[in-house]
């Protein structure tokens, strides 16, 4: 059978072998967690607790009145120690709430219906919102907004994203194997909210065990989902690429998946939805893959949000002597870290530690080979965009489509001259965005 995929893209080494066969271990609950008030795209939350307050596990400690936002919860039972700005793994300082654990979990659960099948969509949507669920694939877009597309957009299909195309990461892979029921229930709940009948699960072909396990479970259940094995290619897990591969639909430039009648959610998100709607548990933990040649014993860890990176790395035997870089997320789109005291956030799918020394940043002139152009899954001209950005030709950059770049990193990965294409494009996007906004 010919496997489905999208056009262009690249084939980085997968490096999944470090952790793909390792059962997820539960990391002991830390004595102190640090919960950022911003862990999602949108408005940051305001703290609704004060220093010294007692909080329960799952209690909301920050929320915002804005529509695009998502509440944050305490992930331990304890006492608020401080509310101050600390370093966020995204690289800047943001407001965080530090909580000292005082004992075992005393849960504050959400009010949930006995049988979700009979609940109204509004009720389900508000549970998803109250549970603080955001896209767990890395983008951290508030899920309840994805589940409420505007009236005029008719949604006919739902795709569950089980691609996990970033090298090293295996948290979604393990989740599909170990929590198959939650994955399927979560997907069914999302589809009920959206009112769609057609559900697809896109999984890259390098996870045959997950494909067969999910197919088996679907056959035994009364769900009617279609599992779609996909070719192993980066960035298969980007929403637009996934829709192209599964449904042959093209999201228009500047558009969203809902413009072509599709909603895409990540496997981890489906599990969080199932936990919230069925058990009433808000999003307080997630699976984090700690991997790479720079860590002694790579593992998949079920981790409370707010645990410091250091604790996870210690649990994995610590960093090796020769480790040079630690990323949050995979090596393609991840963010390199310089301080391991940063907390795990909702979007932390993995912590990847590498020992390669090739990152001295030397780049050479562009040789016009066009490799970046053949790699770009968005059909852009990365070399041109980067140069426009470098020389501040913002109008041209805008016309050439700089805002469509999904920052997948494929171009920079293949460039033989080692040009930091994505970094230039990101600067360009920032400036073009400012220009466009000032014009309006």
């Amino acid at each position, binding site marked *: 059978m010919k496997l489905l995929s999208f056009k262009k893209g690249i084939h980085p080494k997968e490096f999944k072998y470090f952790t793909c066969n390792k059962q997820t271990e539960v990391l002991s609950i830390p004595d102190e967690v640090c919960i950022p008030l911003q862990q999602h795209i949108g408005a940051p939350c305001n703290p609704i607790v004060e220093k010294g307050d007692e909080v329960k596990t799952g209690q909301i400690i920050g929320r915002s009145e804005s529509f695009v936002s998502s509440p944050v919860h305490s992930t331990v039972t304890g006492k608020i120690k401080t509310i101050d700005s600390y370093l966020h793994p995204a*690289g*800047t300082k943001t407001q965080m709430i530090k909580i000292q654990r005082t004992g075992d979990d005393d849960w504050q659960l959400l009010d949930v219906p006995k049988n979700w099948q009979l609940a109204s969509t509004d009720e389900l949507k508000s549970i998803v919102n109250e549970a603080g669920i955001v896209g767990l694939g890395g983008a951290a877009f508030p899920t309840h907004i994805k589940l409420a597309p505007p009236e005029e957009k008719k949604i006919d299909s739902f795709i569950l994203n089980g691609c996990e195309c970033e090298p090293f990461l295996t948290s979604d892979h393990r989740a599909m194997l170990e929590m198959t029921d939650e994955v399927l229930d979560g997907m069914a709940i999302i589809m009920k909210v959206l009112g769609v009948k057609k559900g697809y699960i896109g999984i890259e072909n390098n996870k045959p065990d997950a494909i067969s396990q999910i197919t088996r479970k679907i056959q035994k259940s009364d769900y009617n989902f279609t599992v779609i094995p996909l070719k192993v290619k980066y960035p298969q897990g980007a929403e637009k690429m996934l829709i192209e591969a599964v449904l042959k639909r093209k999201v228009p430039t500047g558009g969203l998946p809902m413009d072509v009648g599709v909603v895409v959610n990540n496997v981890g998100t489906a599990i969080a939805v199932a936990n919230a709607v069925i058990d009433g548990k808000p999003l307080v933990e997630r699976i984090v893959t700690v991997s790479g040649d720079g860590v002694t014993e790579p593992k998949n860890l079920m981790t409370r949000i707010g645990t410091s990176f250091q604790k996870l790395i210690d649990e994995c035997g610590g960093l090796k002597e020769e480790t040079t870089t630690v990323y949050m997320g995979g090596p393609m789109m991840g963010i390199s870290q*310089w301080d391991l005291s940063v907390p795990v956030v909702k979007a932390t799918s993995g912590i990847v530690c590498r020992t390669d020394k090739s990152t001295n940043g030397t780049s050479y002139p562009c040789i016009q080979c066009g490799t970046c152009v053949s790699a770009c899954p968005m059909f852009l001209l990365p070399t041109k965009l980067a140069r426009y950005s470098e020389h501040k030709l913002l109008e041209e950059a805008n016309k050439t489509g700089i805002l469509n770049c999904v920052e997948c990193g494929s171009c920079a990965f293949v460039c033989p001259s080692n040009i930091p294409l994505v*970094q*230039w494009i990101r*600067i360009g996007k920032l400036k073009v965005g400012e220009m466009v906004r000032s014009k309006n």
Partner: protein
Amino acid sequence: MDINAILISMVSMGGLGILFSAGLSIANKKLYVEEDSRIVQIADELPGANCGGCGLPGCNSFAENVVNAKIGIDGCPVSTEDAVAEIATIMGIEAVAGEKKIARIICRGGNDETAKKADYHGIQTCTAAKLMGGGEKLCNYGCLGFGECVDACPFDAIFMTENGLPEVIKDKCTGCGKCAEACPREIIEIHPISNKLFVLCKNHDAPKIARTVCTKACIGCQICVRAVDEGAMFMDNHLAKINYDVFGKHPELPTEKCSTKGLVIIEHESQPTEQISI
């Protein structure tokens, strides 16, 4: 060669030339557009650097807008007082003398003062470094040290010192504000030259952290704020700031009391003896 061929071509080309020049001179008379002579006069008074500091595409366009009364005569931040007076005379109005403005670098955290957090190998510009986790220095608020302001200055009035901080050459700086616009950390502020007292730091960290980040950090001790008149200085989230309107000519400057000597008076601007090219 046949002499005739030469003659014929000379006559025909010469004839054409006369014909076109006649046409052009008629067109010049008939279609003449009166240009306001003041535009040229004003443009002559302007610096001619086309820096864009006035918000218009260049000096000529500024002159046009002055004549059309779309912008004030003192709209060019670069012009000297004399030039503004000249423009006023050309326009036949009274000149209000604006004060000279100058760019001030509100950070003293160079390579020697701030702790370094990591090696940064990315694109060597300040904006790039800010996007990538904030560059190499530990301070999250301070100068990044890649000199984007230097590149932005149309008057070559800023250079980077060996310590990795920009320095403004007082006599060359025209206060056009291009550097302030370029700086992604908002380190550069344009001040009237009479503002001499500054808290040269932008760090909002809590005192304990600020101390570890940079030896010149404002640690929010509030000594200065208490020492001056009510309202002349204030605290903005662990950082002391000056309210220049109220502060005015405060007689007793509390600089000596500042814990980190970050509160400084710029009286006799240090003139650079040598420029370090970057």
